[in-house]
């Protein structure tokens, strides 16, 4: 990071390649739109480049960049008038998706239409969560961050993160089971 702060483009390239997948997927899961996720990921790294000189290594670099990303995502939704972004994750072959995973029975992987519908339901349920609950859930589930790290990223206490996650899981369960009926 210190080399990046000194304007070293090669060091910056290494840094981008190391973090681009996690940042891109964090944004994608949060906003639910592939094109928007790519644009916002680019914006995140532009901000990293611009702010590199003022970066102080008080926190982990990953926490710093996640914080930039979280702020950008939250601002993006605000600027879009908190409009619900309708999207649909494409299915990944072999991936278990949707509310069927909530039942004890195995999902039918052959029924593509049904799988698409399940995928839509689960992504809609995720999108319907309040912004901070959604961000906390994504950071915990997909990036496996500790409550301490999430609290630094979201700028709240550890106990607040715990509450956010309790409510997020409860809400998600209710949404998924009510839609599955």
């Amino acid at each position: 990071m210190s080399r990046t702060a000194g304007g070293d483009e090669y060091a910056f390239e290494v840094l981008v390649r190391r973090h681009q997948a996690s940042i891109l997927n964090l944004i994608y899961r949060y906003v639910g739109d592939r094109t928007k996720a790519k644009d916002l990921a680019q914006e995140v790294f532009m901000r990293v480049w611009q702010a590199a000189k003022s970066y102080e290594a008080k926190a982990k670099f990953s926490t710093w960049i996640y914080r930039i990303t979280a702020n950008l995502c939250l601002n993006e939704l605000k600027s879009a008038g908190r409009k619900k972004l309708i999207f649909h994750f494409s299915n990944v072959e072999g991936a278990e998706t949707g509310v069927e995973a909530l039942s004890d029975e195995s999902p039918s992987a052959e029924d593509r239409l049904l799988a698409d519908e399940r995928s839509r339901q689960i992504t809609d349920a995720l999108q319907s969560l309040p912004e901070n609950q959604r961000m906390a859930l994504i950071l915990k589930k997909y990036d496996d961050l500790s409550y301490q790290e999430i609290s630094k990223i979201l700028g709240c206490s550890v106990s607040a993160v715990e509450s956010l996650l309790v409510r997020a899981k409860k809400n998600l369960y209710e949404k998924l089971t009510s839609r599955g009926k």
Partner: protein
Amino acid sequence: MGDRMKCQDVQKKLSPFQDGELKSKDQDQVAKHLQGCPACQEEFAKLERVWQALEGLPEIHPDPEFYGRLIKKINEPYESRPLSGFQEVFQLFSSVIGCTLLIAGVLIGAFLGNFLAGSDLFPFRSTMASKSPETIEVVSFRVFDPVPPGTLGDGYIRMVSNTEIQHK
């Protein structure tokens, strides 16, 4: 009753237990309780099903050109970058405001010109109204005189001239 309270306490801790965020002592206590409590097992199973369902969301992979486009955008001149929505609106708004102010300025100037030409405040009004166009044109050029008609200096000279005539 004691057991039910215990279940309530345990169920409050199920989410951090699932995330591995409890202290090791609490983590062990919850795990032990779960082994013998079907009600808490059911609650924990709900959390596990939610977690399992979320695994179905696919990942996207970064474009190989991602860095190339990024560094190109960073190095491109600021002016050539596409404007954000706010900047576009602001630029449009400032252009509209600028044009409106310009038009308003011209209209106010025209109005004031007409108004002053029709009032006593305008220095040439009395002479212009009674003279032919050719004369007006000549009079208009008198603005380049050392003491143009209608100015304070002109008024002073006239006043002094009248006083001298009266004395004679």
